[in-house]
């Protein structure tokens, strides 16, 4: 019992420190220092051509973070891929009524359209590579949930998913290297002379849509691998 009280005391004092920190920060007189966000908001659209500022930060100003983060996802997928033994093990193994099978069959094209929409319109509306990729990953997940893993494995073998994921990652880096070919730094978009087009249209903002597509492919394949290996875990 003393141990529980001690732990509670620790956590409460941590909370006290945090609260002191937050209240200090809160009533610190904020001379508007963050010129960085002012700059992004004012010139963001001209410099990157993307309406959605979050995507412009993610895929142009700080595209290096996204590369690092995509590697984290790839590592997670590799870990789960090799943690799983080769034997097949279907998860629920429950047989559903005909309605479920038919519904999934008809649902899949709509999910695919939604996924592609979210990826392609990443720089115009909220969403983008990550979110669209996850939506695309729903298709193999839905298949393995309803029709069982062997069917979804048959449709999309783990090897193809691994290859698709790697292609996505390599594509991201090669797009970054495109700028280096023209003499600019890695992952340079506007400066490297890629046509930014006029903001608001689909084909605009230079490299960003292609980076979005690459990340979308990668995240989709990665999460499909993660989900299937979790289900096959033995």
């Amino acid at each position, binding site marked *: 019992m003393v141990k529980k009280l001690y732990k509670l005391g620790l956590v409460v004092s941590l909370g006290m420190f945090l609260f002191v920190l937050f209240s200090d920060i809160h009533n610190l007189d904020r001379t508007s220092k963050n010129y960085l966000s002012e700059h992004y908001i004012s010139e963001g659209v001209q410099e990157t051509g993307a309406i959605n500022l*979050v995507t412009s930060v993610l895929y142009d100003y700080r595209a290096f973070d996204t590369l690092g983060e995509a590697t984290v996802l790839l590592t997670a997928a590799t870990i789960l891929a090799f943690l799983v033994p080769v034997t097949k093990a279907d998860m*629920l193994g429950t047989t559903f009524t005909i309605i479920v099978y038919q519904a999934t069959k008809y649902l899949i094209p709509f999910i695919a359209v939604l996924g592609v929409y979210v990826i392609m319109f990443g720089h115009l509306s*909220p969403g983008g590579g*990550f979110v669209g990729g*996850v939506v695309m*990953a729903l298709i193999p997940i839905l298949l393995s949930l309803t029709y069982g893993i062997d069917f979804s494995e048959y449709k999309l073998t783990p090897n193809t998913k691994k290859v698709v994921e790697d292609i996505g990652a390599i594509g991201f880096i090669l797009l970054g290297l495109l700028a280096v070919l023209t003499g600019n730094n890695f992952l340079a978009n506007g400066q490297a002379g890629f046509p930014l087009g006029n903001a608001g249209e689909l084909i605009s903002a230079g490299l960003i849509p292609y980076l979005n597509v690459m990340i979308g492919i990668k995240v989709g394949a990665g999460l499909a691998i*993660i989900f299937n290996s*979790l*289900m096959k875990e033995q």
Partner: protein
Amino acid sequence: MDMIVTLLMIFLLVTAFFMVFTKQTANAVIAFPIFGSILVVLFVIFQAPSVAMAEAVITAGLATGFFVITFNKTKDSRKE
């Protein structure tokens, strides 16, 4: 506007405490998507749509799936 935020915040806390202090993990795993979706609504109110979408899809969506699979696969040691 503030009314909704305070309400949602309190609801968020209630779900979090429930998730942590319930006896069976089944209740915790079920309460998790509720926790996720309240967060999504909060993010939308705080004008962060892309974060809300990502949160909805990854934390509320996939993480719940992972939790359900783990919970399902660890059936036979749930009694203790």
